[in-house]
């Protein structure tokens, strides 16, 4: 019996353009599997953003629209509301990095969450601006060395990082906010369940659903893929604890 195959929602002959060992590929695979399982492929409009996540439309076999840097949630709002105005209920999600979602786009992200836009946002948090070569971002941990914090992030110069999933959970319009990781099998399966729940909540019309995925960036962290996963497990999850910070069905 075949127990694994390439998800139907992954474009045939597409090759991920990510660095070796980057968790983006795992995250997109989980998103595609969830689209397949919930039978959403022909009603989905995915919103791509700027950064390493930008080429989403090269990988996912669904209708896809690119948003300007940081504006994915605003663009998704427009897509969702326009279809609703025309009598359609389409499935709309954004796929963004932490810089896109929580720095340049924080206003759009937060206000979409506050309004309770019935969309889902997936945020890949790899604690730096990956595509431009690993600069300090909103999620860079205190002490973390990046190309623009060569002596490590310090409070005096760079201020504090943002705990995105916790912040989003505080917004009244949010149905679900969770932080997951991909450093081992158990966490990958857990991440998949979170994505599925977030997608299902949108299908049920419960409001803004959000999954922050702690992800590796082996190239810019200058660690092997395996060591990157160890860093997430041993260091980052202490700063960014995994868990569900809001679930409208449990609250």
């Amino acid at each position, binding site marked *: *019996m*075949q127990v*694994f195959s390439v998800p139907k929602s992954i474009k045939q002959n597409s090759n991920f353009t990510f660095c070796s060992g980057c968790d983006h590929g*795992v995250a997109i695979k989980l998103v595609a599997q969830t689209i397949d399982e919930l039978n959403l492929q022909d009603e989905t409009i995915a919103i791509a953003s700027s950064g390493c996540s930008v080429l989403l439309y090269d990988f996912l076999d669904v209708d896809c629209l690119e948003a300007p840097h940081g504006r994915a949630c605003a663009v998704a709002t427009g897509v969702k509301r326009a279809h609703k105005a025309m009598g359609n209920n389409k499935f709309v999600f954004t796929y963004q990095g932490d810089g896109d979602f929580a720095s340049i786009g924080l206003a759009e992200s937060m206000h979409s969450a506050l309004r309770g836009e019935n969309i889902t946002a997936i945020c890949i948090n790899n604690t730096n601006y990956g595509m431009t070569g690993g600069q300090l971002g909103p999620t860079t941990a205190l002490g973390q060395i990046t190309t623009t914090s060569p002596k490590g992030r310090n409070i005096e110069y760079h201020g504090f990082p943002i705990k995105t999933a916790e912040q989003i959970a505080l917004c009244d319009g949010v149905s679900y906010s969770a932080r997951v990781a991909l450093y081992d*099998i158990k966490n990958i399966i857990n991440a998949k369940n979170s994505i599925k729940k977030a997608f299902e909540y949108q299908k049920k019309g419960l409001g803004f659903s959000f999954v922050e995925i702690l992800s590796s960036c082996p190239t810019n962290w200058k660690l092997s*893929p*395996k060591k990157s996963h160890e860093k997430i497990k041993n260091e980052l999850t202490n700063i960014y604890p995994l868990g569900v910070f809001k679930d409208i069905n449990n609250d």
Partner: protein
Amino acid sequence: MSYIKIDKNKCKSCYLCMDVCPKKIIQKSNELGKTGEYIVEFKDEKNECLGCAQCAIVCPEIAITEVHKNE
């Protein structure tokens, strides 16, 4: 007999599959991949593969395209 299929063109030699395989039957091959490193190969001479699909779950490239599990 359980087995996996690897798309050699997709492998980027991160070796996460080798690490997670409980039977250690995914190994470095002698073939260089697009990152300039040796890509992995599935070498199951003793029919040890469990069909657990952990390798496919962790593979960031979906280079492990099929996992077949013997009932």
